[in-house]
């Protein structure tokens, strides 16, 4: 089983979807329970990955699977080529971990066409897992696009009032980026063929060996970076996010925040940076500037939001700024901080969207001014909300601090010192917007009579928050569980990026003259 573990895990949800389609659409509870079971089984299947000690010592790909898929002579070949290392490991785990929670959160929230909703969730899970484990660039692209479609429908069908606008905006933004990436992928592939490399499909490992001339790197990098930056999202390509988040149903927002955004950051780490290290070096100041602007900008805009969900969405822009700053630091501390901050953001912001969902289900509004004084009616909710709020603020002892601190340490040790200084002001602003929101929603007298009858969280809601709370403290107090398995892979990555940068510096590589596309 172990040699096909990744495939089993990835395709279990889509298999589940196929079976789901056979269940009569009236049978709501069966549809829900079945989806929950499928996601739970997927999580169980993925668990051995997390416990495998091999990641602590070996930074290479594990659980590799390879099968030839499409081959058109020498001209085009792509393979089913998957594997996992310390970088993708925790993102895969995050995905399988969040999915059951997301499914459980929809128990009462989704009313129309539950069958379609659940089927799309399962399809989405396969897409996300596939993207994280792909070792073939074209395969990655297929999974990447596969994720886009279910999300589009989740927002467009089950979303709020403005759902069509949000869904179309989400789709167009992401599709524009993807198309540029597709062109870049094809270019790199044919470039590799032209330069006489014997390609095993779009194998990433082989692309890593490739030396692309600096000027071509720049354009290719920009194409990749553009696509990933939209997904992250990095300032100023973030405006799809508040709309998509606000309109999406709770489960959609949770998945979007927790996992889909990580596709962008993961794309940088896995593809854009190691493939085009020289272009990365050239663009570094601009990228770091965008990160820092994103942190400050996201925080300031979050501060003045009147809609809780939009506030959380803008806070994502700020948090992801920290992630990218750490990643761009290109040293072990920064990358580790960036990686763990991806997980943290998945947990904390995912939890915040769940929390917003709880009060939305009760009041059918997300306007901050509609609330106030909830702490009196809902003590359990208050406690959980408080913990998550402070985790999002980055209080030491919670997960948020570990990620931010390491990202800043990394940036400080690299050339991004001054960026880190400015970014640190983000910790002040985070406290401002989160606590102000918390005060307006939870504290004060109950002025709105509709809030006077609110019920505290029920058992289901508590159960789905508990695992998130566990990880808030686990990562906050003993993050080494996660670091130890990331480090070897990240060290490999650093060698890959920096090693190639140095080669390029010593010996500038000219484009082979015979490169011409027939």
């Amino acid at each position, binding site marked *: 089983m172990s040699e096909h573990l990744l495939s089993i895990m990835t395709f279990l949800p889509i298999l589940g979807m196929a079976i789901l389609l056979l269940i009569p659409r009236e049978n709501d509870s069966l549809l829900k329970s079945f989806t929950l079971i499928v996601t739970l089984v997927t999580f169980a299947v993925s668990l051995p990955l997390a416990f495998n000690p091999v990641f602590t010592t070996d930074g290479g790909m594990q659980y590799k699977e390879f099968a030839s898929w499409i081959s058109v002579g020498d001209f085009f070949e792509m393979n089913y080529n998957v594997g996992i290392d310390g970088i993708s490991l925790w993102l895969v785990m995050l995905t399988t971990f969040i999915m059951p929670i997301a499914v459980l959160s929809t128990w009462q929230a989704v009313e129309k066409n539950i069958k379609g909703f659940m089927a799309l969730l399962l399809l989405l899970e396969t897409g996300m897992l596939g993207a994280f484990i792909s070792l073939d660039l074209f395969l990655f692209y297929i999974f990447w696009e596969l994720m886009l479609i279910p999300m589009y429908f989740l927002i467009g069908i089950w979303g709020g009032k403005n759902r069509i606008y949000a869904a179309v905006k989400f789709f167009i933004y992401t599709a524009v980026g993807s198309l540029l990436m597709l062109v870049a992928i094809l270019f790199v592939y044919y470039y590799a063929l032209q330069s006489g490399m014997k390609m095993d499909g779009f194998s990433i490992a082989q692309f890593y060996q490739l030396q692309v001339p600096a000027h071509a790197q720049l354009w290719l990098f920009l194409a990749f970076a553009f696509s990933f930056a939209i997904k992250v999202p990095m300032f100023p390509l973030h405006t799809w996010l508040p709309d998509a988040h606000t309109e999406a149903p709770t489960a959609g927002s949770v998945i979007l925040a927790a996992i889909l955004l990580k596709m962008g950051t993961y794309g940088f780490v896995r593809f854009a940076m190691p493939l085009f290290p020289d272009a990365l070096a050239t663009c570094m100041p601009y990228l770091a500037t965008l990160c820092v602007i994103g942190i400050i900008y996201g925080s300031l805009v979050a*501060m*003045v939001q009147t809609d809780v969900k939009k506030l959380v969405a803008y806070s994502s822009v700020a948090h992801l700024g920290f992630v990218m700053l750490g990643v761009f630091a290109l040293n072990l501390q920064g990358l580790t901080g960036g990686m763990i901050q991806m997980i943290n953001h998945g947990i904390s912001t995912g939890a915040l969207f769940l929390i917003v969902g709880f009060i939305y289900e009760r009041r059918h509004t997300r306007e901050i001014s509609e609330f106030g004084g909830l702490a009196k009616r809902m003590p359990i909710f208050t406690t959980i909300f408080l913990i998550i709020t402070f985790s999002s603020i980055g209080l030491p002892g919670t997960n948020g601090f*570990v990620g931010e601190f390491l990202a800043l340490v990394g940036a400080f040790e690299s050339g991004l010192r001054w960026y880190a200084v400015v970014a640190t002001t983000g910790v002040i602003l985070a406290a*401002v917007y989160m606590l102000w929101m918390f*005060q307006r929603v939870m504290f004060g007298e109950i002025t709105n009579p509709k809030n006077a009858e609110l019920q505290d969280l029920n058992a289901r809601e508590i159960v789905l928050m508990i695992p998130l709370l566990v990880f808030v403290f686990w990562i906050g107090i003993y993050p080494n569980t996660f*670091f*130890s398995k990331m480090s070897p892979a990240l060290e490999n990555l650093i060698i890959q990026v920096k090693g190639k940068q140095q080669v390029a510096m010593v010996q500038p590589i000219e484009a082979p003259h015979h490169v011409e596309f027939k």
Partner: protein
Amino acid sequence: MYDKLWLIPFFPLVGSIINGLFGKRYIKSEKVIGGIGTLAVVCSFIVSLSCFFQLSAGTEKVYEAVYGSWMTVGQLQINWELLLDPLSALMLLVVTGVGSLIHLYSIGYMHGEVGFYRFFSYLNLFVFAMLMLVLGGNALVMFIGWEGVGLCSYLLIGYYFEKKSAGDAAKKAFVVNRIGDFGFLLGLLTLYWTLGSKGVWTINFVEISHNAHLLGPGSVVVTVITLLFFLGATGKSAQIPLYTWLPDAMEGPTPVSALIHAATMVTAGVYMIGRMNGLFAMAPDTMMVIAIVGAATAIFAASIGFAQNDIKRVLAYSTVSQLGYMFLAMGVGAFTAGIFHLMTHAFFKACLFLGSGSVIHAMHHGLHHAHLNDDPQDMRNMGGLSKKMKVTYWTFLIATIAISGVPLFSGFFSKDEILWWAAGSTRGGWMLWVVAAGAAGMTAFYMFRCVSMTFWGPQKTNAKAKDHIHESPWVITLPLVVLAFLAVVGGYVGVPAALGHFVHIPNYLEGFLEPVFGHAQETYQIAIKANMAHSLLAEFGLMGMSVLIAGIGIALACYFYLKTDVPARFVAAFPKLHRAVFNKWYIDELYDFLFVNPCKRFGLFLWKGFDVNVVDGVVNGVGRVMQLFSAGLRYIQTGFVQNYAMGMVIGVVVIVGFYVLR
């Protein structure tokens, strides 16, 4: 006992969890909840005490305990480590000792509150965080405590969360502290990176002390690092410019004000500088800044104390002012004196706050009985309470005498030690002394104003409520008595050399803290001795003058507020000045104007102006352009074959023509 060091923070943590999870549903009984909370801190106190004795008896003065790794990433190695040395041992005693008393007091004070369990859970959590701050063996473990106490402060200030003012104050406290924490964090990062570039990757306190010289005495980088840390200290310890949160923090229940906002948390900044004295001693410029900020805060906050009518606000400004003294001490290199004042201040200020709490408790009770809505904290409603509340009165008076610097009480010894060092410091010595001595006189004045308005003179409480004002129960008065006792005798552990010389009492504290501060203090001490030609006459002269100033302050306050209407006439004569002082010199308004409102406006502009108009304008604009294009192009698709044929012909002509004519 050293190997049981972890027990000290462990007990309160457990207490907090038990009360937090089970207090409301399962335990319910106030006695049990309060008992668990108090017992947890008492247990910590006992362990601390045994550690303290072992440390004083033993020869090994520094003990580090490592409990595994927190973060291991490459050369970044951060452990869960605790550090016991004379400094932390002393601080442990203050925190757990005063903490135990205040927990006991809270059982009585918080009686009948709906959130009784919540209060004790938070209070225990606070003690846990404070102990982590004190015991933290490296800057990051300290930072856990540092922000942890900020969290608990937030929770406890906002304890009455239904009041908007409480919610505002809580948020303000946390955010202002965060500005300080920003400094702490940046200082930490810079320190880590700079030391690392010298080959020492560490944030461990002992190693920082050992390697501080690598940064170069007086170098720019060490000045920057220490200034950043000091920014952290100004946030936590409410110094200029970040003091504004502390007076508002009085929204919390009174035991909270006593424990967090007087005795322990707000002294964390002083403690942190003491903890890193080796580093700070390397940066004379920073030390100068600290001394000036401390002295300025001492006198500035004292001036605001003149015009406040809320008994807790008077004490709050007094706390800010007294913390200024501690920073002054740290700034002139008198680390021992700063910690000494920290300790005595913890005794007398906790006593004052708890005493004010006892008064408020009684006033509240009385007003409640009479169904009146008068403010139970407004001193203008009090007066003559000395007859009604004997124990509260006497303890409050003793603590007031102590804070005013009357000889033989604890405050006298510690304050005088600071004044002496300030006078002797090499830079700006006498000016620092003048400011600090002036502030001491002002302290004596406003504190005795407070006593006279509250306890002396005619009773101004509404007649209907008067008879319902009683002395508080023993759980409240017992801590008062103990703290008042400490406020008297606490000073004898650090009798200044000049006095001790005559009565043969050694300066015990200086000897005890010598292993921590000795080295850093030495350089400053030598300078002072050279400066002042260490004559007994000079020391006694200065001492006499400061006593005289305090005496004048006391006399004026008693005279003005008991016998005359001078204050009222003064207010009538200078209405603008009075209003400015009463409104805290409009500093809050200034900050709102300078920082808060522009930030909000800018955020709003970025959102409505940039996000919605510019970015989305472009995005939607592209969409619009596409629509317009296709709307236009639609007309070409007429469906008539003739039109298409016409197009083809034109196209062919153009292309052929292009190649022919080229």
